[in-house]
Structures are given as C-alpha cells and as structure tokens.
C-alpha cells in the first residue's frame, strides 16, 4: 500500500512539474515572441481577431448630438451620414481606429518620440532623435495656440479634432480584440489626444520636406568644382508647372545664379574642403540612426503626378482632375478613403477624399463643388548651420557668447524608469551633432551643427484641409490655401464652374545672403556659418506672390515634381537637387497637349501609362551603334531585333525593357563613375544630363574613360555598356535566349508591412514601368557591383484619383493596400490587387443621403445612437 502510494506521489509530482513548467513556458515572452498561451491557444489572442467588422452593429455614444449612420461599401470604404460635422468626425475617428489603430499608434509614437514606451530602450535613440527634430514640440505649440484662438473657424476645427479623438478613444475603450501587431508586440493602445492628430502634419512634413540635400550639394560642389557642377547637375528639358512665368531656359535655371560666382581661391577651396569633410562625417553618422536611413531612402520615392484638363480638352467641356501621389509603400497604406455627408438640410457638406488615419479632414479629394490634388514641390525649406562652440553650454553667435536653450522631455521606457532628455537649441534650431561622434576636430570639440526647418513653426494646415473640404469656388480654395505651410504642395484645382488652376503652396523662407562668403551659392543651397549670422531667415515668400496659374490658354495644367515656375518668377523656391528630372512631366504634357476630347477612360490610361520617354530618346543612339557593328554575335543580333521592334512600353512581360533599362544604367555609370569616383562625388548626374550629352556632344570629356590610355567617345561607351548589359542578363537568367529575359522578373514591387515583418508584406510581384514612367515604380538600381540584382521596388503611386466634374459620381479611386490594417481582413490588400491590375473603384458619391445609398452597395453598417450606454 505504502509502496503504491509512494509510486503514485512520485508520478504525480513528475506530472505536476511538467504542468508547472508548461504553465510558465506558455505564459512568459521569449525575445520578440509574446507569451504563446495567451497569443496562440484557443480562446484568446489570435482567435479573437475577426476577419472583418460585423455586418450590422449599433453603438450608443453619449457625446453624439444625434444619430450617425455608417455604411461600408464592398471595398470597406465608409460612407458616414450625420447631422453635424462633430458627430461625423466622431464616427470617422471610431472607424479609423477600427481599421487602422496600430498604424495610427505607430505613426504618433514615431513622430512624438514614444516608441521606447512600448518597445523598450532599443528605441531610445530613435525617440531622442525624433524629439530633437521638434515635431512634438511644435505640434504642441500649435495645439495650444489653436485652443486659445478666438477665431471661430479655429474653434470649429479644434472642436472637430476633439470630437474625432473622442471617437478614436471610444473605440479603444470598447474594443473587443487587439490586432495581431499588438498581440505580437505585447502592448495595448494608449488614449488618443488632439496632439496626436496635429503631430501627423509634422509627420508628413518630415516625410516630404526634411532633407540633407544641402550637405550633398556641398560635397558635389567641393568634389567637382563649379564648372563641372554646373554642367553635370543642370536641369535640362524642364516644363514649368505654372505657365505664366516664361518659357523654361536652362541658362535661367535655379543654377543660373551660381554661374556668376567668381573663381574660387585656394583658401576658399580649403574652407569648402574642410566643411565638406565635417558634413560628410555627420551625414554618414546620421544614416546609422534607426529610421533616419529609411527616411533618406524614402525621399527617393517622393514624386507624384497631378493634372487637370479644362473645357477645350474634356469631352464633356467640364474639367477632369487627376492625382496620384508617389510615396514609399507600406501595409497598411498611408491613405484611407472615406465619404462624409452632413444630412442637416442647412448644410451641403458632402466630401469624398483620402485621409490620413489619425486626421479628421481629407488631404486630397473633392466635394460637390471643387476638387484638389497634390504633388510635392520640393521647396527648399530646411537650412543647415555650423557654429563655433565655446563649451557645452555656449556658442558664438554674431560675436557674442550665446547660451544654448533647452527643452526637457521625459521619455517613458518600457520596463525601466523614464529617461530625461534635453533638446539643445541654437537661435536657429536644434543641435543635431549630439547624435554623432565624428564631427569633433582637435581644437573644435565644441563646434556644433544645427538646422532650421519650416516645420519649426506654429502652423494651421488643418485649417487649409478644413477649408478645402468646404470650398465652393476658386476664392474659397485660395483662402484655405494660405494656411497650408508645410509640406509645400503643388495643389491642382478644378470646380464644377469649369475653372482649373494650380498653385504651388507652402511657406518658403527668404534668406539674408548679404554677408555670405563669395564662394557660397546662397538661397539656402549650402550650409551656412551660423556663428557669423549667415543665411538668416528674414521673411517668407508672400502667399500672393507664390506662383500660380488659372484657366491657362492651353487648357490644361500638369505637375510631376518638375520646376515650379519659369525664369520670370523672382523668388528662389526650389533646391536644384530636389527638382525632378522631368520625364514624367514631359510625357504627361505631351499626351495631353496632343489630344482632345478626353474622357475618364483616357485619364486612366495616362495614369497607368508605362511608355518610357527616356527609352524613346536614347534607343535610336543605341540601335545606331549596334547596327554599325560589322559582325554581330547571336546575342547582339537578338537584342537588336527586339530593340528595332520596340514601342518603348516598359511591359513586365517583355525582354526589351530589361535590355534597355540595364543598358541605360550601365551607360550612365560607365560615362560618369570613373570621374565621379576619382573626384569623390556622391551623386551621379541624371539621365537628362546624359541625354543632353548624348544628343549634343558625342566627344564630351565625360565619355572618356580616364582609366584607359585611349580616348573613348560616346559610341564606345554605348557599345561597351550594351555588351555588359547582355552579359549581365545572360548570367542572371542563365540563358542566352533573350526572349526569356522578362522585365517583370527583375523589376518587381514589394509592399512591406510597417513593422518590417516580411510575413505581413505583399510581393514581390513583377510590374510594368520604371521610376520615370507616369505609372512609376521606385527602387534601387538593378545593376550593382557589376551584376544584375533583383529590384524590389517599394515606392510608387500611393493613391489614384480621377474626378469628373461633369458627373462627380463618375469619379474613381484606388489605393495600393486596402482600407483595413487587420492583416487577415479581406480589405487588407483587396485594393492593392486591383491596383496592380490597373483597376479603379467607383466612389458612390451621389449617395448624399442615407436613403440614396443602395442596399446592394452595403457590405456592413454601423448605427451610432446618441445617448447613454
């Protein structure tokens, strides 16, 4: 008996040990893997995440003044009907949180330096750097000023932002499950505040206007010298966005002012060299900061197209407005579509637009009267300053020992005490050198670098967004545009009255360059001596003097990030390196100028156009050279046959685009890289400059390879590049059958999830186009270290919108993701798949009352009831 008892107890003890071990093992996290029991086992975690919203839901909210009805259509787009705008944006906040909560949460944490709170001390440097950019500080200043404002419009906007926050928080408070990302990262969303909404403006401003180009500019200038710089970084073939400031002339480009510079002395050269070294070290250290490298890389993806056609171009005689903003892609996508309708009989508020989840106002879109769309201006709105430091607390400014000012932050950090962090400021802006360790030189240990950025201001962009959403005509639109300080945008406009226009809009500084050294370009193009008081911002370009065009004779307007205005425009707006080289602008202008009676279908075909103007311009030179070879081998002949028969469409299923694109990349490298590497120049001149040289100067010194004894000319480099391209493609594809070298096999699109987790990403999938086609794909080079590499483009059109003012219900939209960020939702990538097929969806804009929204369009519905729960 005792023996049996002992045996049982031993067995039970063993079992108990295993039970306890499993209980512990499944209840604690392992590295990034959350407690598996709560995360994976039936009854909770993943199993609680519904694939989609319920088909019918009723929610009672005490803060509503009246009932609100939300219908989601088959793409999950909400159509929100309420009797007041505060109620409508409350519902929008709820819906945004329902669909995009993790994205909203991450965006505010990244912008406001709150990542460490949920990720831990690994994110501390990222948070410090983010706070150091003063986005949170100026968002808070804007909020405080808005709250205190006696302007009734400001108060309406403030109250709507509050109502929106309440909607977000109502969802957070009552949510029944946590999205996968929260479960995996093991934290819960915090309360949403109005500051979070306002910080989004700073977030977008950072994405589109924060730039280190001044430093690159300096390095190019230092390495090439003035003459080569002016020749190789010129801006040929530009077609100004606004048509009223003269024909573009390369000799009058933004570089023109630099042509007046006198020869640089040896002493000046050594000053430039020393400065260039300091900033080179600075930028290489900055790239090591997590998040900053991505921001710099994503800047390469910033583009966009918008255009509008007027009565003589449109079949209906009323305008059609098109917009596709190009950004780095993520899942979920940056844009969220929604349709808001105020059903109060006294209101005609009915707007369909693309929102940032986190902001209650549409960024682009249309109402019943007007429509508007954006492209980035590339205005030069950030300057870099270097200072002679005295010690940790003081620096020289205009001959006076000046104390730094400090802004103190307490950064919450997961699993440890908060960390105190002080942002150190000069008179211009935050000191950035505390994050790097390589700028200190002997005897200059206290020297610092700081920046001044347009987003370091109280700004009322939300008032512009509110104004555009409510505008009824051109005057209303212009009034609202005054408030859009940053990020500056080429805002295209059209209305039901037949008016069209475009307005590069934003606040642009005017610098005092009266005391800069003679070698300096001025206009904020190079870093300034902050201690000497160089490059002070003394004013801003007055809004009424910003370039604009309205109802031009040509009956259309196009922007694709090219130069804003022609030579007659008096103010400096853009940094030459931030101006797009212009192939997209040229193509769109050509297409629209040469046609008429355009319809919405025609506009779709332009947005989806993958004709390569670049290929059209370069290929004849390539063909001539290959044709001139007396004895072509099989590979050369096969490639030539394809090139001769090519229509310059960058079709993913064809081989010719792969041959051309690889060739042009190698041609560019073989032309410039020998000298650029030798001189230490960080950038390679653009394809448009290469186009000029190819067309006009076949014996240019740049075609000569300085590493060979003989002198090469254009055709030598064309042929060498062609042979290298064929060899590279043969090696990559493992076949000499050129028809197998499909463009889509090396030119792919990959949409990452915003956490970077590849399992939540989409692709890679082969796609048409290049970075220079109207329908673009932005990516790294496919020719790297003398071999072909798979290109995973992760930038391009972040939305497509076509607004037909003849029949607004005929307007179309698409986003390259889906409305919901819930990774198992059918609306996670449904629109992305349509987008890749070149499809659009209708907007159901005519449903301006609940009754008009047809039953067959409804996928799900939420009834928000006013009253206590």
């Amino acid at each position, binding site marked *: *008996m005792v023996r049996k*008892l002992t045996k049982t107890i031993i067995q039970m003890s063993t079992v108990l040990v295993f039970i306890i071990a499993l209980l512990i093992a499944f209840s604690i996290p392992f590295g990034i893997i959350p407690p598996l029991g709560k995360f994976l086992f*039936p009854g909770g975690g*993943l199993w609680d995440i519904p694939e989609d919203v319920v088909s019918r839901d009723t929610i009672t909210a005490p803060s509503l003044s009246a009932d609100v009805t939300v219908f989601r259509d088959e793409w999950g787009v909400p159509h929100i009907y309420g009797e007041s705008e505060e109620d409508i944006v409350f519902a929008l906040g709820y819906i945004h949180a329902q669909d995009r909560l993790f994205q909203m949460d991450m965006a505010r944490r990244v912008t406001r330096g709150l990542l460490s709170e949920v990720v831990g001390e690994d994110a501390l440097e990222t948070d410090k750097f983010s706070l150091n950019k003063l986005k949170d500080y100026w968002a808070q200043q804007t909020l405080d000023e808005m709250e205190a404002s006696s302007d009734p419009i400001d108060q309406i906007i403030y109250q709507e932002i509050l109502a929106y926050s309440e909607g977000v928080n109502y969802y957070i408070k009552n949510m029944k499950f946590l999205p996968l990302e929260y479960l995996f990262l093991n934290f819960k969303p915090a309360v949403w505040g109005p500051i979070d909404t306002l910080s989004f403006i700073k977030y977008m401003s950072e994405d589109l206007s924060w730039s280190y180009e001044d430093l690159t500019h300096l390095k190019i200038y230092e390495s090439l010298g003035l003459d080569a710089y002016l020749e190789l970084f010129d801006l040929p073939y530009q077609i100004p966005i606004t048509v009223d400031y003269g024909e573009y002339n390369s000799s009058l480009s933004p570089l023109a002012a630099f042509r007046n510079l006198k020869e640089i002395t040896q002493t000046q050269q050594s000053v430039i060299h020393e400065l260039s070294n300091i900033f080179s070290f600075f930028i290489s250290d900055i790239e090591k900061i997590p998040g900053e490298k991505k921001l710099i890389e994503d800047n390469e993806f910033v583009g966009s197209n918008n255009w509008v056609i007027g009565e003589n171009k449109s079949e209906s005689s009323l305008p059609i407005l098109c917009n596709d903003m190009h950004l780095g892609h993520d899942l979920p996508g940056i844009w969220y579509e929604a349709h808001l309708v105020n059903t109060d009989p006294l209101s005609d508020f009915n707007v369909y637009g693309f929102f940032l989840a986190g902001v209650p106002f549409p960024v682009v879109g249309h109402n019943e009267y007007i429509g508007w769309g954006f492209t980035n201006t590339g205005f030069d709105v950030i300057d870099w300053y270097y200072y002679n430091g005295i010690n940790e607390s003081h620096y020289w400014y205009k001959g006076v020992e000046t104390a730094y000012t400090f802004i103190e932050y307490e950064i919450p950090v997961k699993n440890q005490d908060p960390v105190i962090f002080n942002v150190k400021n000069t008179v211009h802006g935050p000191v950035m050198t505390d994050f790097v360790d390589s700028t200190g030189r002997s005897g200059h240990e206290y020297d610092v670098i700081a920046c001044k950025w347009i987003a370091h201001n109280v700004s009322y962009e939300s008032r512009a967004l509110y104004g555009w959403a409510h505008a009824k005509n051109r005057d209303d639109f212009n009034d609202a545009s005054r408030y859009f300080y940053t990020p500056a945008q080429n805002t295209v406009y059209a209305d039901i009255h037949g008016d069209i226009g475009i307005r590069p809009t934003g606040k642009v500084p005017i610098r005092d360059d009266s005391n800069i050294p003679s070698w300096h370009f001025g206009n904020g193009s190079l870093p300034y001596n902050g201690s000497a008081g160089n490059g002070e911002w003394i004013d801003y370009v007055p809004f009424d003097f910003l370039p604009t065009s309205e109802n031009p004779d040509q009956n259309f307007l196009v922007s694709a990030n090219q130069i804003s205005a022609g030579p007659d425009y008096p103010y400096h707006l853009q940094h030459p390196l931030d101006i797009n080289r212009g192939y997209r602008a040229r193509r769109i202008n050509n297409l629209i100028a040469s046609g008429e009676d355009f319809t919405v279908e025609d506009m779709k075909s332009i947005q989806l156009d993958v004709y390569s103007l670049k290929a059209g311009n370069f290929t004849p030179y390539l063909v001539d050279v290959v044709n001139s070879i007396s004895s072509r081998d099989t590979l050369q002949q096969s490639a030539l046959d394809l090139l001769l028969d090519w229509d310059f469409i960058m079709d993913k299923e064809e081989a010719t685009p792969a041959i051309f694109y690889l060739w042009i990349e190698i041609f560019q490298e073989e032309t410039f890289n020998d000298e650029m590497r030798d001189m230490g120049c960080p950038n390679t001149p653009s394809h448009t400059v290469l186009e000029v040289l190819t067309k006009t100067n076949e014996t240019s010194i740049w075609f000569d390879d300085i590493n060979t004894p003989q002198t090469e000319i254009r055709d030598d480099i064309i042929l060498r590049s062609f042979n290298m391209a064929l060899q590279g493609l043969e090696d990559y594809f493992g076949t000499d059958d050129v028809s197998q070298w499909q463009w889509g096999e090396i030119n792919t699109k990959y949409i990452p999830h915003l956490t970077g987790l590849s399992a*939540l990403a989409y692709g890679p999938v082969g796609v048409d186009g290049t970075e220079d086609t109207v329908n673009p794909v932005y990516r790294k080079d496919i020719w790297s270290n003398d071999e072909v590499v798979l290109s995973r483009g992760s930038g391009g059109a972040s939305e497509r919108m076509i607004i037909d003012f003849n029949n607004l219900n005929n307007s179309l939209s698409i986003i390259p993701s889906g409305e919901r960020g819930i990774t*198992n939702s059918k609306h996670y990538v449904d629109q992305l798949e349509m987008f890749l097929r070149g499809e659009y969806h209708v907007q159901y804009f005519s449903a301006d009352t609940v009754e008009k929204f047809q039953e067959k369009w409804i996928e799900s519905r939420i009834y928000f009831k006013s009253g206590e729960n």
Partner: protein
Amino acid sequence: MNVKETFSQILSFLDKRASYMGFVFCFIFALIFVFTPLWQLSILASFIGGLFYNKMSKGALIGLAGVASAWIIYIVIEILSTQAYVLFDQVGGIILGLTGYGWVFILVLILIGAILGTLGGSFGSGVRMLIETKQEKTSE
C-alpha cells in the same frame, strides 16, 4: 449519510460510467473553456476527466483525447468560418521566417493541447488514486 459515504457513492457512480463519462466531461469542459481567454483551464478540464479513472495512464489517455478533440473541433470551425488560417500563416512567417506553414503551427497547437490534456488527465487520476488509497487505508 456522512460525507465519506457520499463521496464513495459518487466515485462508485462515476466508476460505472467511467469508460465514456470521463471523456464526455473532459471534452465538454474543454470545449466550454476554449471560449474563455484562460487557456490554463484546459488542464482543469482534463483533470476533471481524469478523476473518473483510478489509473494514471487511463486518465492521461482520456485527457489527451478530450482536450485534443475539443481543440480540433474549435480550430476546424474557426478555420472554416474565418480567416484564422491566414493569421497562423502570418505568425508562422513571423516566427519561423517561412510562409505557407500555418498548418504546422496548427498541428503543433493541437499537439500542445493533447499534452496539456495528458498531463491534466493523469494528474486527475493520480488525485483519485491518492484519495482512494487514503480511503482504503482508513477502512483498514
């Protein structure tokens, strides 16, 4: 009737039906508990099932079968009626770096359920054996 007698009668009642009642109780409780956020209760379900047997191996077997079958039914229904498989595929990708292996995760999950059931069931039987041994000792 005193407590001891009542308990003996209950055990006797259970014994007569133990061949299937243990499984039924374990299965029903496990099925109920998968609708709660407390996964630890699956051990309790199998523990209850195990109480029907006075051999730990039998308790283990019934715990295994009861919890595993409850989890399988829950998982199959969820996968057929929702996009849960997509989530498991994604989680598999996150943890293993490979997509298309969500089914492996699900099999492992069922295996874990079976292990929890086995342990809970055998512990339940063990408790029963201890009680019975104590009773026998007392009656002697």
